[in-house]
């Protein structure tokens, strides 16, 4: 942890902070660079939404600051929505609950996602990685997102939850609609979002009924939640459905953007990919550096429900706070020369998975997927090249490449 004296918060107010135009073309093209450059000037920035925390020390402290809240249904209320299926799900799922209630829900699922449990899934995950990578077409252009970055995470989280393999496609479509719940697209997409939630709830309820009536519980998370209920845990049917929806969605875009973002980095630096082909044991370390360097969760939101004094700096009640993972991870306090990829870099305290009680419950699973990918793909496809220009989602919240046109050859093509 950095010492308290590493961060000096100068006097002043939000008005004195440098402004970042999050909707500019320049920001869309080079978000991490702009965040890095602004952080060299100030610990935080001003945006059209509120304040954005750039310093690694401040980010860690504010993540753990229990005076702050998730924005939760504030976004809904701002758009005149005070009830309904989407409102209820958003208000009551685990990410938006605090204290003892949050802990109760979290502990019901944390076992299935613990680093030790994930170590137990590795064999199956490696099979999924192997199958997918062998299905990629050699010596012809293809989209890495469509053929690998999307299918791997949904297969992994789907089987962990206990969703039948032939239903994962349908669940993914519902999930795509539900994730329209972000602030920018909420109101106009409310019917789609609510339909997605209702359909997923209904199907999860049916899958639970099937388990209960057959009496056959497996090793999947849905079965474990039912066992917990039987064992006397206070866990309602709504809570089970809500957890399944949250976890399925949580394991999709985040991981697929991290995978596709990683691939664009390697396509720009194919010599690093070739090194991995000869050093699969470096996969763990390289995956970690990729998480630090290009976090798919580029920012995370908080909200000040009351006036907050942060190290003498006033944050008024009602302020939206973005905690910039992108800026904090490149902070020298986190990583020396953080703007550079260093695949030999020792572990850092990056905040890609957050901090505090809501630290990403799927972190070990995500890490395993990235590591398994980096252990397997480079040796199978040692020579990679671009076959066009990538297309990126806007650099807000969860972001990354949505289209990665590439090709590979199984030849090493020259000196190794």
């Amino acid at each position, binding site marked *: *942890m950095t010492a308290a004296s590493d961060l000096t918060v100068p006097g002043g107010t939000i008005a004195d902070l440098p402004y970042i135009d999050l909707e500019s073309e320049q920001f869309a093209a080079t978000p991490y660079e702009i965040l890095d450059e602004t952080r060299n000037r100030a610990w935080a920035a001003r945006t059209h939404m509120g304040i954005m925390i750039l310093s690694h020390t401040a980010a860690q402290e504010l993540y*753990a600051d229990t005076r702050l809240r998730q924005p939760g249904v504030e976004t809904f209320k701002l758009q005149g929505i005070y009830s309904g299926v989407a409102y209820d799900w958003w208000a009551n799922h685990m990410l938006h609950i605090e204290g003892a209630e949050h802990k109760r829900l*979290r*502990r019901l699922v*944390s*076992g299935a*996602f*613990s*680093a*030790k*449990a994930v170590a137990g899934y590795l064999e199956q995950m490696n099979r999924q990685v192997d199958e997918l990578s062998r299905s990629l077409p050699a010596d012809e252009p293809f989209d890495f997102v469509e053929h690998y970055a999307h299918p791997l995470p949904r297969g992994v989280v789907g089987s962990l939850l206990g969703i039948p393999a032939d239903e994962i496609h349908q669940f993914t479509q519902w999930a795509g609609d539900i994730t329209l719940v972000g602030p920018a697209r909420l109101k106009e997409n409310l019917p789609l979002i609510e339909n997605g939630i209702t359909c997923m709830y209904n199907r999860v309820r049916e899958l639970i009924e099937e388990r209960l009536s057959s009496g056959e519980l497996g090793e999947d998370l849905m079965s474990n939640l039912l066992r917990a209920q039987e064992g006397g845990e206070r866990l309602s049917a709504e809570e089970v459905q809500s957890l399944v929806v949250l976890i399925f969605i949580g394991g999709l875009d985040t991981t697929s953007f991290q995978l596709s973002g990683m691939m664009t980095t390697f396509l720009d630096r194919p010599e690093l990919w070739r090194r991995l082909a000869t050093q699969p044991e470096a996969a763990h370390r390289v995956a970690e550096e990729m998480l630090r360097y290009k976090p798919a969760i580029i920012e995370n939101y908080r909200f000040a429900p009351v006036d907050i004094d942060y190290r003498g700096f006033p944050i008024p009640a009602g302020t939206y706070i973005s905690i910039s993972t992108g800026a904090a991870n490149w902070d020298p306090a986190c990583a020396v020369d953080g703007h550079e990829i260093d695949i030999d870099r020792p*572990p850092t*305290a990056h905040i890609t*998975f*957050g*901090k*505090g*009680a*809501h*630290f990403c*419950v799927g*972190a*070990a699973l995500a890490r395993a997927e990235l590591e398994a990918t980096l252990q397997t793909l480079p040796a199978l496809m040692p020579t990679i090249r671009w076959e066009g220009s990538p297309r990126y989602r806007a650099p807000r919240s969860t972001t990354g490449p949505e289209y990665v046109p590439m090709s590979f050859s199984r030849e090493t093509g020259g000196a190794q």
Partner: protein
Amino acid sequence: MTLRIHVDRDLCCGSGRCWSAAPDFFDLDDEGIVIPLRDHAGDPERERLNRAAAECPTGTIQLEEQ
């Protein structure tokens, strides 16, 4: 110099970073919650323990110089 290791299981969110960094010092129960195995360490183990403490998302692990 020895390091005294303090673990507050109540704060633990089950990330398992401590187990990854130092499985000889930290185990995980069925809920993924930390089980401390040792309450002190020597100099050669300092780096791994500092990493376990730094990467713990909730400050569950506190190290005290003795």
